[in-house]
Structures are given as structure tokens and as C-alpha cells.
């Protein structure tokens, strides 16, 4: 297993946002987390990236525990997180955003291959290379955020809400990118609110509900369930 999460509990103060979650992601898989707002999806991703500290439980990446490591240590091990809201550096140029992300793997000059792939997928980033990232549209910023994670050359890329607030053509582009990254061997952990999209791309899906995993299984198997939307919106699974 590339990523193994066991009995994870994360709290904000004394309030648990994630309670006793266990899941795993195998090398080369695309795994998707779905669930309504506040279900604990982003909290889980931030805990994996080392931004939030688990109250209990273990997170293992490439068979070693990464609990207690700093975000930069975890990034160096090969976890690339595109967090919720993208968090691009808006006051810096597209180029500078990419420079920061490439520092981990020896700078942007030595990453021509990855950069070529990025410009092939997202030609707008080449066009706006020296523009301020804050002036890009939401869809362009999402492309930049994914490009940054690509330059980290991660073993596992985590993308939190890639389609949130994007026009349909950008959602298509982003999902096309994920398919291409998967084909190149990258393991992907996606967080989505949009179930249809998630089910179409992912191998396996976990449905989160109020900080616990309410349901999980192969995408095809879940897609055929009639009560999925009911559970998504907080109902109990049918026996």
C-alpha cells in the first residue's frame, strides 16, 4: 500500500472533525473521497499532508509512519497536496509559483520534461507565465495549482475539490489531466462533492459522513446502488 490510514481522529480544539477513519490507497490507483460539506474530507487531507496533527491513529506512507513529520518533510517524501481553495500565491507570477514548487526537486531549470507536460496540458500557463497569478481566472488558478503539485514530482497527488466553482470546460480539462497523470503512473487521491464525476474516474470511492466512513467500495459497484444520494445527504445505508 502506498498510503494507509488507520483509526485517524483529528480534532479542532476539543471538537472531533474526523473520528476513527481507516482507508488505504494502492500504488497507481485513483481513490475518491465524496461527502457533503463538513464531512471531514479536507481535514483528512490536511492531516495526511502534515498541516493538521492527528489526535489519534496512524498515517503510513510508503510503509513508514508520517505522523509528526512537518509538511515539508511529507512533501519531500512524495505527497503533493492541492488544497481546498487552491491557495496559489496571488501576488506572485505564474513562473514564481512554479519556482517555489520545483525547489523540492532541484529547481525549475532541471524539470524541463515536467514543464513541457504542464504546458502541453495547460497552454494558458505558458501564455500567462509572467502574469500575476492573482489575475488568473478560477479555472486557470486551478491549472496552476495542479501544475505546482506536478513539479513536486509526487508519488501521491491529493487534490481537494478540483471542480469546485469551475466552469464545465475547466472541469473537463482537469479530469482529462487526472486521467493522463494516472496513465503516467501517478497515484491520485481526489476529494469531490460531485458524485457523478468522482464515480466515473475513480477505481474506488469512500463516502464520508460526519467524520466517519459511511460507505466504501469499487466505483462501479457504488454507482449501481440506488440509495447513494440518500446516504450522501446524511441518510443511513440500506441493509
Amino acid at each position: 500500500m502506498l498510503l494507509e490510514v488507520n483509526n485517524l481522529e483529528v480534532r479542532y480544539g476539543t471538537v472531533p472533525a474526523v473520528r476513527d477513519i481507516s482507508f488505504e490507497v494502492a500504488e497507481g490507483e485513483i481513490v475518491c473521497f465524496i461527502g457533503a460539506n463538513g464531512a471531514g474530507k479536507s481535514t483528512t487531507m490536511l492531516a495526511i499532508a502534515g498541516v493538521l496533527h492527528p489526535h489519534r491513529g496512524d498515517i503510513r506512507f510508503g510503509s513508514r509512519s508520517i505522523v509528526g513529520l512537518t509538511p515539508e518533510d511529507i512533501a519531500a517524501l512524495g505527497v503533493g497536496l492541492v488544497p481546498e481553495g487552491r491557495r496559489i500565491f496571488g501576488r506572485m507570477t505564474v513562473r514564481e509559483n512554479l519556482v517555489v514548487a520545483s525547489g523540492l526537486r532541484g529547481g525549475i531549470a532541471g524539470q524541463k520534461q515536467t514543464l513541457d507536460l504542464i504546458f502541453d496540458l495547460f497552454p494558458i500557463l505558458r501564455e500567462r507565465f509572467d502574469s500575476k497569478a492573482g489575475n488568473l481566472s478560477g479555472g486557470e488558478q486551478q491549472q496552476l495549482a495542479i501544475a505546482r503539485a506536478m513539479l513536486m514530482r509526487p508519488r501521491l497527488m491529493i487534490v481537494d475539490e478540483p471542480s469546485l466553482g469551475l466552469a464545465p470546460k475547466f472541469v473537463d480539462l482537469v479530469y482529462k489531466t487526472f486521467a493522463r497523470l494516472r496513465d503516467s503512473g501517478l497515484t491520485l487521491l481526489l476529494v469531490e462533492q460531485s458524485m457523478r464525476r468522482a464515480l466515473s474516474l475513480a477505481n474506488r470511492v469512500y463516502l464520508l459522513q460526519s467524520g466517519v466512513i459511511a460507505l466504501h467500495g469499487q466505483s462501479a459497484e457504488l454507482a449501481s446502488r440506488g440509495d447513494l444520494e440518500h446516504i450522501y445527504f446524511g441518510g443511513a445505508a440500506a441493509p
Partner: protein
Amino acid sequence: MNAIQLVVDALSLGSQYALVSLGIGLIFGIMRMINFAHGDLIMLGAYALVVPTAADVAPPLVGEWPAAAMILTIIALVAATAVLTERFAFRPLRRRDADGATLLISSFAVSYLLQSVVLFVHTGRPKSVSILADLAQQMQIAGVRVALVDVVTIGVTALLLIAMMLFLRRVRWGIEIRAATEDFTMARILGVRADAVIALAFAISGGLAGILSLLFVAKTGVLDFRMGVPLAIAGFVGTVIGGMGSLFGAVLGGLFLGVASSLLQALLPEVLRPGRDAFLYGLVIFVLLVRPQGLFARRDTGERT
């Protein structure tokens, strides 16, 4: 007072404040910590020029070395002290996610510690020291005599600001400092090493403080263990009115404060001059009431998650 003299005076003081504001702003931008000990680093650099002694007259030590050696030594010494304060006073707190108030109190403690050490070694009596004697001359600008040290202060500041701008825009470490200033957590998620980028910011901030030690002593020739305090306050106010979290704003804020202070000194009626700082800080309150986000802050500054 002649207009040219007034402008040179104002820009000279503004330059000093701009450098202090930049030093404080660099640290604040990344750590959201106000380092009040910054002024005492300037003080420490000044005292390093003379032999440590309780005697009233301190013979020069580093202060009588050749100019290049003296300048580099003071910059290195103050930068190293700044890095040490970060390593032993601030980093352990940061590791434990201490809030800004705790860090602020810690920086007060470092400030008083440095002052007390100097007070213990040198006593509280101000001492005089003369360095870079060539700067004491006057020079002519358009037939008006101005102090060379003021012109050099302005020139050195301009060069430092250009060098800093190039560093922050062209060099990867500089770009990483800006990224950490804008969103520290995100920079770390992308692999930027928190300890390294903060140590670098402290080293640069300390280096700027060291240069200021030299400029300040070259102008005044006086050492006083409390000399850093008003500078730190001016620098901090400059950072705030410039717009916290913006390095460019910090520089302009410091410049604004120094220029305003000099202009008030020159233009206030004689009888009101002793109350100059009351007018100056009244103006600061007014500026903050009108623009709480700072004079030069853009809409996207200060935001932090």
C-alpha cells in the same frame, strides 16, 4: 532651513526607518511575529565597535579596523546574533504553535536581555565613538552644504532596497521568502523548509540591522544601551502604516514616518517643536483610522489561513 537640506534630512531619517521597517517586516511577514528585539540588534552592532569595558571612555575595537573589514564584521556579527535569537528563543515556541502574543512577549524578553547584557558590561552611561571619519564632512549640492553621512545613508539604503528587490524576485530563496510571506503553510506544503526560510529571513533582517548600526553611529557618534528602542518602535509603526505583510509597504511606511518626522521638526512653529512626536503619532493614529489596512496594502494582504 534650506529646501535641499530639508529634503536630504528627511530622506536620511526616512531611509533609516525604511531599513528598520524592512527588517521587522521580513520577520513579521513570515511568522506574524513582531520582533521588538530588532532595535537591540542595531544597538548591539553599535557596541561591537568598541572594547567591552565599564570605563567611561571605550577605546575602539572593530571600529578602528579598515572600513571593509569593520563593515563586514558588524554585519556578520549582528546577523549571527539574529539567527541565534531565532534558534534559541523563537523556534522552540514556533514548533509548539505558540500564538503571536507569546512570540511578542518572547521578543520583549530578548530585547531586555540584550539591553541588560550591554548595561552590565558597559554601564548605562552613553559613550562616544567615531567611525568612518570621512563621512563627517559636508558636501555641496547646488551650492547648499549638506552632511555627507546623510547622502551616504540615502545612497546605501537605495542600493540595499534594489538588491533586496532583485533577491526577492530573481533568486529562488528570495522567491521562497515571498511565498512564505503570502501563505506560509502553503509554501511548506510545496516543500519550502520552514526552518531554513525563517533562519534566512532572520539573517537578512540582522544584516540590515548591522548596516543600520554603522549608519546610525556614523551620524551620531553616540552609544546608548537604549538607542535601539525608538528605532524599533519607528520601524514597527512604519510596518503597520505601510500595511502589514507587504515588504514594499513596510519600506514605504518607514520612509513616510521618517520624512513626516523630519518635516514636522522643520516646519512646526518653534514653540510646538518639543511636541513633535505627539503630532507625529497623532498623524499615525489618523492614518490608521482612515486606512486601517495600511497606506500601501493591497486588498489581498494580511489574509492568512
